[in-house]
């Protein structure tokens, strides 16, 4: 993500980033495993299943990013698109 640079801020050093990923992975695992202890009350059925929140959140985001990417193919234009259109008009 960030270029490695020995005199750079501690937060962007590769070592820190690796550590942050490890902590993040630990927390992720913990939130799912916690469901063995804490019962999630399902309001519509599926949302009470084991790990549903995790899977649903992840899948929803992947779907949205991919959908946005797809739309972007059709909708993206250069930054000066409207200025150029005005000049043509």
């Amino acid at each position, binding site marked *: 993500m*960030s270029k490695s640079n020995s005199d*750079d801020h501690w937060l962007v050093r590769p070592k820190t980033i690796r550590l942050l990923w490890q902590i993040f992975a630990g927390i992720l695992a913990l939130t799912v495993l916690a*469901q063995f202890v804490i019962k999630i009350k399902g309001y519509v059925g599926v*949302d009470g299943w084991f*790990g549903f929140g995790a899977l649903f959140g992840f899948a929803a*985001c992947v779907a949205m*990013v991919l959908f946005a990417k797809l*739309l972007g193919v059709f909708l993206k234009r250069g930054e000066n698109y409207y200025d150029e259109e005005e000049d043509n008009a």
Partner: protein
Amino acid sequence: MPEYLPPALILLTGALLIGILRGHMRTAVVLLSPLLTLWAVWQVPDGVVATMPFLDYVIEPVEGSPLRRLFATIFAGMVFAGGLYAYRLARWYELAAAYAYAAGAIGVCFAGDLITMFLYWELMALFSTIVVWCGNTQGARAAGIRYAVMHLLGGIILKVGIEGVVVHTGSIDLQPMQVTNFDTWMILIGILINAAAPPVSAWLADAYPESSPTGSVFLSAFTTKTAVLALIMLFPGESILIWIGLFMVMYGIIYALLENDARRILAYSIVNQVGFMVCAVGIGTEMALNGAAAHAFAHIIYKALLFMSAGVVIYRTGKHKCTELGGLFRTMPLTAFCGIIGALAISGVPLTSGFTTKTMISQAAANQELVAVYLLLGAASAGVFLHAGIKFPWFVFYQRDSGLRPKDAPWNMGAAMLILVVFCIGIGVFPGLFYQFLPYPVDYEPYTAGKVLFYLQLLLFSGLAFFLLLPLMRRTETISLDTDWIWRVLIFRILQKLGLASTAVGRAISQFVRRTLNNLLAKAGHHLSTEAPDTEEEPGMLARSRPIGRTALWIAVLLTGYVLAYYF
């Protein structure tokens, strides 16, 4: 004469004084008039407080209720925070316009009838346009005109609806109505235009990011949330709003994901958040309406906070694109911290205001057994974290090192942001204190272990998705086409084509006219050479008398033609 001042008039007077006074006096007005307004808001008792004759009607300029006071409170509070944030940087006319704009919003809050509501509604449209213009760039001027056209159009549609309701029911009361006929549809559409509902959502992301760094803070707060209030008061439980709201929620996420401009990301996320509120109004139960009102309140705070942090960045660096920013946390720790708190709050992370208000809407959907709505709101919550919760702070403050080393926020901007941070966290940690101000009694507990765990899973795994998909989200120097393409490009292309066609038609017409004239001249010559025509005959074209109605019609046609010819 009422025994106290309507809150909107206090703020309007403040706006006027900002224009008249200079130096410390002006600063005093900027900071004190919102507080005085806030005090006045809490002096308004329930029910109609003041009436006055207007034309043939008795209007009710001030009517109080818990819901109205709630919205007016956050509006007045927001003016104070915005004033503190802006007063050293913004020009006096931007401040004056922003205060008058906010006065319009507060006026709508207490409007007891449709006529009063409409007048304040237009006040908002007028002065918010000026705030957009204060961006003071070519882009801001053009966007301001498009913004004004959209809102004047919305105002006309609203007015048509109000006239219809007044004529057909004889009542100017502001009360819940059913969308059953033309009149009520017009009112609904007029309000939805201000809420940035489809198909005209584009006006928001077009105009707000063009305003000045201080102007966008004010703009983010009032127009859309006043529309939400109007929807709560006029159309609670109108089921079509559920689907309009869900569309807005998804639209906001997708467009924000595609966007490169930092403030435009935030603008799209306004549409997204207002979508939650519109959806809640559509659900229409007491819990849903509480949720809509609470979420509007919380949203104004964290969205202003986000716009403030983006504003500081733009003020300090002069840059506003994700592709040009990054790594700013090094020298702007305070701004980064405030931006992150705003981002966490908008994502509805537990212990922030977003969690205690947005989950109320989801709960209301679940209670009504609206399974699809409940799940879509859940997916949207994940999407909010994706596009605003992480994307905004990540690309502005982290990402790569852009090499920029700007100074942190000036003290007044930092203070304004910290005040909002306190409220973002306060409402999240002590929801009970806040819930008592909601319009209906609250029977909802946000902090159950299961609910917190569910949302932590949802949000943290969205975060995982963000970082895993980062390569797919590389920012490009692009904009995304929206429905505004229709009125910014398509219409002009069609007119161009028509223009070409009309030149062809014009040539044909002029040929025809020339030929006819020649014939006439030839005939006239022929007649003049003989004796005068019989007087019994119909008089000549110019001598005939015509009914005045037809004359007026032709003048109208001529004028229209003239205006069109002049315009193109």
